[in-house]
């Protein structure tokens, strides 16, 4: 082995029996080198740094090695330590420096700090296993083997307009006993449900935060059940490079990295992309009252946006705000995403409260935010999807105006609100509805429809079922007197608040869910559905279930039978979208015929063909997409006609006449019972009456012309 070692890989120093030498400044973090580990960490204001080494799980460190002054280059401390056991090692740092909050410094050398560049964190290895609260170093930096065998795997690079995104919580997806999987609530369990995902017809899973977080954060008693309230969703990052160990069946063996990579590889094999919901707007350290875990003790002033008095700006609504446009922090974010893209083969990222990423170090919005620009032009991230949640808790709302650099897409919150209002029967929405189904050209004129991630429900807010079962939120179980969670739900309970035996109401609710799924799947842009909506999951009217590790967040697989009609419909409507390229345009409609088919690419209709009623009192809109214009006229598709009726009574819609002897066939009629509400591709019955169609009250009809 010795012949493999470079001349400079021999120790020069020894202390407490540990041999070490000057290290490499880059890369930051802990890196395996021949016979040793290279440690490198940045702090702009520390006056002294000590590396602290633990045997895995031991209460006390086996060594503490102060970085000799000559090991510091600029503001970076680096050292190679020899003969350490990669697998058993846990490491951290003590940083000495001033504790002067008014100047932004919060150094405390009594605390052992986690490495911002650690690739795994020990301490929360199994979900909700009771921690040792007296641990002197609760979130321990670890190394991981970076030798995963990807074989021929590669990110799928599916065109974004062809995606059907499925927003999923790793634990919530399979934790319910009805999921009947081995290792419920884990990455491994998702793998055993891949057949289900394929059957559903989605081709991208968006995982809610999987960076290491502490589910015990702010844990307290549930005022309703007496159980425990925890951080279930995980929007509170402890470390940006580490997957959550508690989401891995093998987390207790420290093999979460292999387990997650295996999941990604298997999903890819089945044509399913993986997008991560990433939280770079704040960390788990909270405000000035929070715990010091890492960043605060390493370089408070660099990592956080601070008020002139030294307190934390709170644009995230969670206590602190990561200082993303500081060049050092910006590089960390970039390093992190590159790592996930290159080492985990992640296909895309959804950025939580992304408007914060466009704020300067004092919180003011930047016109040309360096971080967003860097990500957009990064060579390694070049094929990754970048999706912004284009608002923050500080009031910056950038839907339609997020700095995009030709790359960024957005969660379209306006789409969600407009469709909800239309479906509940509000007036004055036909103009917005027309925007929704076109990928909102008014907002995304230059960016194209693919800038719009369309959704009607997501983890935040009501589930699709609850949207039609509750007028008001019911968040009592969150322990905040029902004051948390949004109030602008635009929901309608269909007549009774909550569960009911009334068959008519239940039927209407199911129909409304099918209406919602139909409109979502025929809209230009990129559709996203919330995991469980395909079977009508309920959260009992709670619209902010971030803290519940129970049935409120665990998908009930028994609903596959109970709501079989919804599931049957969902599986087919996703396929309908994927079968018809005319629904998935990369560019906006031109409202004219540019291929010589005789019909414009899109035309609007109403109860009268060619006459859409955009007046304030209208609740009806129909549109026709000309198949000859599919994908800008490069592919021949059927024509698609969609009639949407939010009026409470049935109305006749006059159908546009198809050219060249073509006829209308029925693909979807949400007013019909299951089996007749949606037809398999190629099995659509031809309409007897080609002149008009009776669209039921609060119903959606989709026809294909061929």
């Amino acid at each position, binding site marked *: 082995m010795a012949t493999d070692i470079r001349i400079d890989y021999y120790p020069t120093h020894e202390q407490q029996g540990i041999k070490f030498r000057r290290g490499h400044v880059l890369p930051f973090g802990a890196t395996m080198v021949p016979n040793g580990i290279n440690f490198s960490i940045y702090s702009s204001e520390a006056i002294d740094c000590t590396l602290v080494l633990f045997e895995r799980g031991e209460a006390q460190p086996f060594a503490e090695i102060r970085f000799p002054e000559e090991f510091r280059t600029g503001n970076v401390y680096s050292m190679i330590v020899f003969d350490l*056991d*990669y*697998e*058993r090692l846990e490491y951290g740092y003590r940083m000495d420096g001033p504790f002067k909050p008014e100047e932004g410094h919060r150094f405390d050398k009594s605390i052992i700090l986690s490495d911002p560049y650690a690739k795994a964190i020990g301490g929360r290895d199994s979900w909700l296993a009771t921690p040792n609260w007296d641990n002197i170093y609760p979130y321990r930096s670890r190394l991981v*083997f970076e030798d995963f*065998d990807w074989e021929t795997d590669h990110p799928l690079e599916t065109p974004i307009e062809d995606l059907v995104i499925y927003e999923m919580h790793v634990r919530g997806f399979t934790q319910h006993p009805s999921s009947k999987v081995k290792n419920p609530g884990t990455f491994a369990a998702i793998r055993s449900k891949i057949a289900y995902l394929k059957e559903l017809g989605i081709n991208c899973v968006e995982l809610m935060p999987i960076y290491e977080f502490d589910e015990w954060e702010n844990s307290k008693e549930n005022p309703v059940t007496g159980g425990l309230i925890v951080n279930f969703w995980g929007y509170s990052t402890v470390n940006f490079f580490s997957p959550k160990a508690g989401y891995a069946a093998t987390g207790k063996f*420290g*093999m979460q990295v292999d*387990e997650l990579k*295996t999941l990604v590889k298997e999903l890819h094999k089945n044509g399913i992309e993986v997008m991560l919901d990433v939280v770079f707007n704040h960390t788990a350290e909270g405000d000035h009252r929070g715990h010091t875990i890492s960043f605060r003790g390493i370089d408070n002033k660099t990592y956080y946006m601070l008020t002139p008095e030294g307190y934390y700006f709170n644009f995230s609504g969670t206590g602190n705000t990561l200082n993303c446009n500081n060049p050092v922090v910006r590089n960390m974010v970039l390093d992190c995403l590159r790592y996930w893209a290159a080492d985990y083969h992640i296909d895309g990222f959804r950025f939580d409260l992304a408007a914060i990423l466009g704020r300067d170090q004092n919180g003011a919005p930047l016109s040309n935010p360096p971080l967003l620009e860097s990500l957009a032009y990064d060579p390694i991230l070049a094929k990754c999807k970048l999706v912004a949640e284009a608002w923050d808790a500080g009031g910056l709302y950038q839907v339609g105006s997020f700095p995009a650099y030709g790359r960024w897409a957005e969660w379209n919150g306006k789409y969600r609100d407009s469709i909800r209002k239309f479906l509940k029967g509000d007036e004055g929405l036909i103009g917005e509805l027309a925007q929704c189904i076109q990928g909102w050209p008014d907002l995304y004129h230059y960016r194209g429809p693919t800038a719009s991630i369309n959704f009607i429900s997501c983890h935040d807010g009501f589930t699709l079922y609850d949207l039609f079962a509750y007028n008001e939120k019911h968040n009592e179980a969150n322990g905040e007197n029902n004051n948390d969670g949004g109030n602008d739900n635009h929901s309608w309970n269909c007549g009774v608040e909550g569960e009911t035996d009334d068959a008519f109401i239940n039927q209407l609710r199911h129909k409304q869910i099918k209406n919602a799924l139909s409109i979502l799947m025929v809209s230009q842009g990129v559709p996203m559905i919330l995991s469980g909506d395909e079977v009508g999951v309920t959260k009992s009217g709670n619209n902010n279930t971030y803290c519940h590790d129970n049935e409120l967040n665990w998908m009930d697989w028994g609903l596959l039978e109970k709501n079989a009609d919804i599931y049957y419909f969902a599986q087919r409507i996703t396929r309908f979208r994927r079968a018809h390229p005319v629904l998935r345009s990369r560019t906006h409609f031109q409202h004219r015929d540019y291929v010589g088919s005789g019909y414009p690419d899109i035309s609007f209709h109403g109860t009268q063909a060619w006459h859409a009623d955009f007046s304030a009192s209208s609740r009806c809109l129909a549109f026709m997409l000309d198949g000859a214009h599919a994908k800008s006229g490069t592919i021949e598709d059927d024509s698609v006609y969609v009639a949407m009726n939010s009026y409470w009574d049935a109305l006749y819609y006059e159908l546009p006449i198809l050219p060249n002897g073509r006829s209308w066939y029925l693909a979807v009629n949400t007013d019909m019972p299951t089996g007749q509400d949606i037809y398999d591709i190629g099995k659509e019955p031809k309409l007897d009456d080609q002149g008009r169609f009776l669209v039921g009250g609060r119903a959606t009809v989709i026809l294909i012309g061929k």
Partner: protein
Amino acid sequence: MKVTITDHEDISVVEVSGDIDSKTAPEFEKNARLATDKSQKIAIDLTAVGFMSSAGLRVLLMVYRNIKGQNGKVVLVGVSEDIQDVMSTTGFINFFTIVDKLDEALVILKQD
């Protein structure tokens, strides 16, 4: 942990007993290398192994890669249910043929 290597015609059998963790994995790796240096048909008998850590699994994978590069074959014998679970969850299992008894491994390896 103890490792013994025995030869059955052109097949090398690596028999391990005890736990394979980061402390013992280098010894396992050294012996596995010896076996792969002289044979392209390897049976690794893990019947007497109670625990195998990530480092141990990585040695197995290294053997597999090495042997595959020589168009040979590796068969694992007597892998405990716990270890198989971890191998399955982390994807390692996809690379291996696993049998209960050494006799079965010898039959498989002789076929090629």
